[in-house]
């Protein structure tokens, strides 16, 4: 075999390494600022682009896509060349990859600061940037597959598998989650609505964690940990098993982000089960990583790199145990919407991604600068400072999560909320927030030590633009002589296809039914599309990042329905492009902010003053000021475009409504202005504050509008004649047994709770329309639910027909008559 000499490129690696460090500092700096904003709201400065709602997505994007993203590229470009024994496929593509990625990051920072956002977590960027991301990702993919194609080793090492899975899956996730209808250059609406949008979003969000923050880093772990420890990975078998089970399982677990929320039950259960199973491959990976160091533990004492790896991999194991624990419904009921989620995410980001990155950088710089690390001692100090930083960060947040959740759920002896004012549960957390910010600052200061150490290292050495290596050329063998077990490692295309299928199955089985089955999203007839003014208000809500602190999802717990009102239903969100359920309650839930009789309702005057200066109403509030709402106008020229875009994705505005939408907008705005004027506030129809008030007053108003009619006991007419068809009545019996039998007996005979339905005596009248009315509207104070909110319209007709069909059936154990005699003709 011919021995060939070739050169590894180090320039791309150096560029990405520097970018990693630069964006790491930026991202962490913003993180410390927003942590402080939660304790000291004055730090929002009353300026839109410095307010928490805008900065938080900048922080998450900077850390995930800029810091971690650049670290991934640095590590991948370094390791793939060496694992494949060849120079990178194309240096030029590598440079395009680099500058393209930095351009995306810069554009992201600018547009997010300006309020151009889709509000979908970790996918906030607007559509032109989405397209740019896709292009740069393709450029990188070409470079990866090109390098694989010209490799000089026959078999692909396990790291390369993880890189391939990353590239493929991120492409699928990015494309499907970013499907949106553009309104203008920097505004679009998600094609998915409400519950579908939420499920697609968390399928994406969860797997962005899986395939951006986990699989590439596992690939890096399988290369850099053996290199640093100077011994091969513990078990090759375990790495194969780890890889396939991990990529197969991860994709299913997304719905665990939506437990107890308005999502079909079977989707939630699927998410829970797969999350629990995920412990196995994750721990397989951790064990494999840690045991690689066996026999080298004495070196951990001196080596900062190995320390970073040990703690990083251990944190990976802890996070992947905590994650499944958080996916149990009973744990999630406590943790969700609190700081536990934030703590969990940061243990992963700071310890797993951060520490693996630091270990890699301390190892890489001396290699590519052909020298020794400037100071091992300083690196060790960095390790201890950032470990301390993580503890100071995480522990207060867990503490705060339990404090807040227990306060939310605490009832007095009389059965009332012990802390009815949401703010009480926030001010209690401020000491924890200060400590957390301190932890973040410690971690950041460790980063400064790293910069000093690496700059000194680079100065003491000489950068090697390329490194020489030699290997025999890969001679194409005729038919593989392998006995069949290693056929996959030597066939990258076949491998990629199988990996793709493994990942796609989860998406197909889980996502498609939600999109295609209409009955998964029962419609509620009183839910109507947003008015033009409300739509404008909603877009302001999105662009100012209100959803980062306010959820719109009342879970079916008494502690939540007491505080906010009726729990959220799937059918309420059918016109929500995108959904705004949120993940964290720094402020109260707003799903019922527009219910005039509800506890969350505030008048227009209150909202006006609250936006202008929240502290004028609540002294201790941490809500930032939004003074610009009162000085800036909404852009009414965008209204027709927005209406047309909504029509395209199926929102039933009447034909030609786009042309007259602004008239309706002005009419509705005039009423709010009049209301404000009566309370001594002068403003005009076009001000942003008016649209915000209109939107907030709409939230939850739809389903409660009908509730109000019920209270007047509005008489309904049964929409169809009672059905007599045998099959229909049989399915009516099924519905009855499932929903009604608990209170009215298996055969309608009645029990201790509900009256007999088969005799001639009725509490609320015995005509067909009477029976339909009481079934549809219910009698909530007596425990009879309003079934029109819970059953589909057809099912309601069917079950009422069934009840009518069992009249006079004289079942055994019949309950004594209640109410008045009603004789049917």
């Amino acid at each position, binding site marked *: 075999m011919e021995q060939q000499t070739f050169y590894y490129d180090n320039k791309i690696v150096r560029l990405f390494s520097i970018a990693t460090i630069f964006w790491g500092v930026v991202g962490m700096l913003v993180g410390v600022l927003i942590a402080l904003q939660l304790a000291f709201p004055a730090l929002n400065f009353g300026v839109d682009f410095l307010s928490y709602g805008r900065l938080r997505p900048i922080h998450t994007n900077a850390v995930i896509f800029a810091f971690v993203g650049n670290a991934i590229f640095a590590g991948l470009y370094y*390791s793939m060349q*060496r*694992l494949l*024994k060849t120079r990178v496929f194309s240096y030029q593509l590598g440079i395009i990859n680099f500058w393209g990625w930095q351009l995306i990051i810069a554009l992201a920072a600018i547009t997010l600061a300006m309020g151009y956002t889709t509000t979908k977590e970790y996918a906030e960027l607007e559509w032109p940037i989405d397209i740019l991301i896709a292009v740069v990702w393709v450029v990188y993919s070409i470079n990866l597959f090109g390098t694989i194609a010209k490799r000089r*080793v026959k*078999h692909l*090492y*396990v*790291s390369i598998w993880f890189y391939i899975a990353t590239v493929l899956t991120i492409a699928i996730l990015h494309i499907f989650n970013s499907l949106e209808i553009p309104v203008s250059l920097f505004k679009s609406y998600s*094609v*998915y*609505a409400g519950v*579908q949008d939420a499920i697609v979003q968390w399928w994406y969000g969860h797997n962005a964690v899986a395939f951006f923050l986990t699989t590439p880093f596992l690939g890096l772990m399988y*290369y850099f940990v*053996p*290199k640093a*420890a100077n*011994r*091969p*990975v*513990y078990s*090759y*078998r*375990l790495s*194969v*098993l780890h890889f*396939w*089970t991990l990529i*197969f*399982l991860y994709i*299913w677990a997304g719905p665990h982000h939506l437990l107890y929320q308005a999502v079909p*039950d*079977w989707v939630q*259960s*699927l998410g829970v*089960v*797969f999350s629990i*199973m995920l412990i196995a491959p994750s721990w397989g990976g951790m064990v494999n990583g840690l045991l*690689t160091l*066996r*026999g*080298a533990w004495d070196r951990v004492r001196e080596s900062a790199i190995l320390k970073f790896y040990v703690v990083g991999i251990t944190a990976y194991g802890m996070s992947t145990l905590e994650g499944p624990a958080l996916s149990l419904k009973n744990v999630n009921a406590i943790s969700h919407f609190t700081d536990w989620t934030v703590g969990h995410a940061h243990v992963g980001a700071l310890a797993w991604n951060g520490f693996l990155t630091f270990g890699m950088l301390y190892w890489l710089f001396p290699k590519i600068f052909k020298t020794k690390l400037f100071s091992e001692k300083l690196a060790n100090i960095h390790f201890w400072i950032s470990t301390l930083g993580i503890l100071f960060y995480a522990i207060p947040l867990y503490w705060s999560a339990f404090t807040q959740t227990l306060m939310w759920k605490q009832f007095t002896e009389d059965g009332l909320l012990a802390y009815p004012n949401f703010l009480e549960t926030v001010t209690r957390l401020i000491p924890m927030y200060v400590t957390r910010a301190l932890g973040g600052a410690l971690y950041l200061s460790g980063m400064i030590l790293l910069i000093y150490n690496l700059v000194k290292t680079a100065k003491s050495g000489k950068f090697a633009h390329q490194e020489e*290596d030699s*290997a025999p050329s890969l001679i194409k063998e005729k038919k593989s002589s392998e006995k069949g*077990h*290693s056929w996959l*490692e030597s066939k990258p295309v076949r491998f990629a296809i199988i990996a793709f299928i*493994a990942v796609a199955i*989860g998406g197909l*089985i*889980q996502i*498609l*039914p939600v*999109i*295609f*089955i*209409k*009955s998964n999203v029962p419609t509620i007839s009183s839910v109507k599309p947003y008015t033009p003014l409300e739509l404008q208000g909603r877009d302001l809500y999105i662009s100012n990042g209100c959803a980062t602190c306010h959820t719109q999802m009342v879970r079916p717990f008494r502690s939540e329905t007491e505080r906010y009102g009726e729990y959220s239903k799937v059918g309420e969100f059918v016109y929500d492009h995108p959904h705004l359920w949120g993940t964290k309650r720094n402020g109260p839930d707003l799903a019922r902010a527009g219910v005039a009789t509800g506890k969350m309702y505030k008048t227009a005057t209150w909202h006006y003053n609250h936006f202008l200066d929240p502290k004028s109403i609540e002294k201790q509030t941490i809500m930032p000021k939004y003074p610009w709402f009162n000085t800036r106008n909404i852009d009414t020229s965008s209204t027709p475009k927005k209406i047309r875009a909504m029509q395209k*994705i*199926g929102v039933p505005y009447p034909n030609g409504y786009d042309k007259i939408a602004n008239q309706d907008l002005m009419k509705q705005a005039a009423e709010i202005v009049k209301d404000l004027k009566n309370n001594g506030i002068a403003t005009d129809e076009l001000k942003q504050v008016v649209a915000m008030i209109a939107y907030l007053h709409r939230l939850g108003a739809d389903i409660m509008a009908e509730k109000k009619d019920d209270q007047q006991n509005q008489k309904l007419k049964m929409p169809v004649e009672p059905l007599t068809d045998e099959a229909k009545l049989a399915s009516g019996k099924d519905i009855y047994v499932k929903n009604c039998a608990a209170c009215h007996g298996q055969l309608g005979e009645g029990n201790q709770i509900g009256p007999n339905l088969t005799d001639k005596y009725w509490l609320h009248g015995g005509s067909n329309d009477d029976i339909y009315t009481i079934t549809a509207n219910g009698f909530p104070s007596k425990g009879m639910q309003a079934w029109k909110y819970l059953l589909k319209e057809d099912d309601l007709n069917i079950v009422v027909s069934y009840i009518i069909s069992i009249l006079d059936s004289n079942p055994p154990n019949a309950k004594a008559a209640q109410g008045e005699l009603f004789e049917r003709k």
Partner: protein
Amino acid sequence: MTVMLASPLSRFIEGINHSNFFPIVSLILFILVFIGAVIWVLRLSKDFRTRMKNIPFNDENKQNLKEDGK
């Protein structure tokens, strides 16, 4: 979305009693994948595993392959 994609596929999926079908199918699929992967790794020869493990070290110690880090 339903408006855009309403199709025979939609009717097909709707016909499935999804509350039981999907979780069971996914469990079976996973078990198959898992068993497949286990069989696969058990059939890998010692020699092959040692060779694969040492790919990251080929630039340094070409002669002596490392066995389980001993």
